[in-house]
């Protein structure tokens, strides 16, 4: 056995998720070259991500050419729901994985006819924590909170609030029935991220959906500016 005292410290400094990040960069470059705007949609289980996507796809009919990747630990239920509104839906079963990774996105995109797509909606695994740190090659990150989850969720999930390009406050139609203080929620968000837009939406009533669709169009256009 070697003497544990005789050891050398080797300085390195390299990102731990370097391999994922490199894959994400190749995905991002490929999507940008094809003129596809990709968003990574992150929110807790039950925050209404799939219902929001259903409403979004319904409203986008004839306006955009979307494809959807949807990540879940198990079942194809979300994929089946979304396939009613969109021809190109790929369900990614992550098994044990609590978030999507860039390699899964790259594989799933092989099942999509990208020449027919100008908008890629990626519904991440329901989780407010793990997905945030894994770059998928998206152009923008969308954070989804629901009023039914409580007004403390932004404060408890600072990474998502700081990393998000837009925050959706979903199920706004249920506001009269739940204890959710908008001013508390917004104040917490503003402390963590002074500039992120907060859009109040309801997938059920359609309230606020126009602003969300406009955000998608405008962000896409902004990105294409030289």
């Amino acid at each position, binding site marked *: 056995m070697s003497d544990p005292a005789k*050891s050398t410290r080797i300085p*390195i400094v390299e990102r731990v998720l370097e391999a994922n990040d490199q894959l994400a960069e190749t995905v991002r470059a490929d999507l940008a070259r094809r003129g596809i705007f990709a968003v990574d949609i992150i929110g807790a289980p039950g925050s209404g991500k799939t219902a929001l996507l259903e409403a979004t796809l319904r409203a986008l009919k004839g306006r955009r050419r979307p494809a959807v990747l949807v990540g879940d630990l198990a079942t194809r239920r979300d994929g089946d729901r979304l396939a009613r509104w969109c021809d190109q839906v790929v369900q990614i079963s992550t098994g044990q994985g609590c978030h999507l990774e860039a390699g899964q996105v790259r594989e799933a995109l092989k099942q999509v006819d990208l020449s027919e797509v100008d908008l890629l909606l990626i519904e991440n695994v329901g989780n407010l924590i793990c997905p945030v*740190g894994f770059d998928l090659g998206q152009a923008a990150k969308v954070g989804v909170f629901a009023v039914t989850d409580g007004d403390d969720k932004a404060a408890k999930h600072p990474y998502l609030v700081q*990393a998000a390009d837009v925050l959706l406050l979903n199920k706004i139609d249920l506001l009269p029935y739940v204890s959710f203080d908008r001013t508390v929620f917004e104040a917490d968000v503003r402390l963590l991220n002074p500039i992120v837009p907060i859009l109040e939406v309801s997938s059920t009533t359609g309230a606020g959906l126009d602003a969300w669709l406009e955000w998608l169009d405008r962000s896409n256009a902004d990105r294409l500016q030289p």
Partner: protein
Amino acid sequence: MHEFSIADALAAQVLRRAPAGRRVREVEIRVGALRGLEPAAMEMCWEAVTHDTALAGSVLVMDMRPWTLTCPACGRAWESPVPFAECSCGEASPRPTAGDELDLVSMTVDEDDDVGAEPTTGGAPTAGVEAEAR
């Protein structure tokens, strides 16, 4: 439990970067507060993913970088383990900022036992024995 994926990625990275045939004693990472990494969970995951590998028994050292809170009233800035805390001047809402770095900083490996046999190939230990026999 993003700790598991991170531990898994880290173990692969360390095995890739470690000099051939040298036992890894310690692995040091630096973690920004935004990452929300739980040190106890990370330690458990590290043990789990390194079990039965060349990294078994190695110690994971985590440099957990804190939040910086800046008071909009008095201008004081200080480090804090939590993002929301009152300032000593009474201001209730100092602005929290933190990094999202997640870096492998260093690894500590055993000195090479075989004098003059610098392991340069994949089969380093065998190569060392051959060198001595010659």
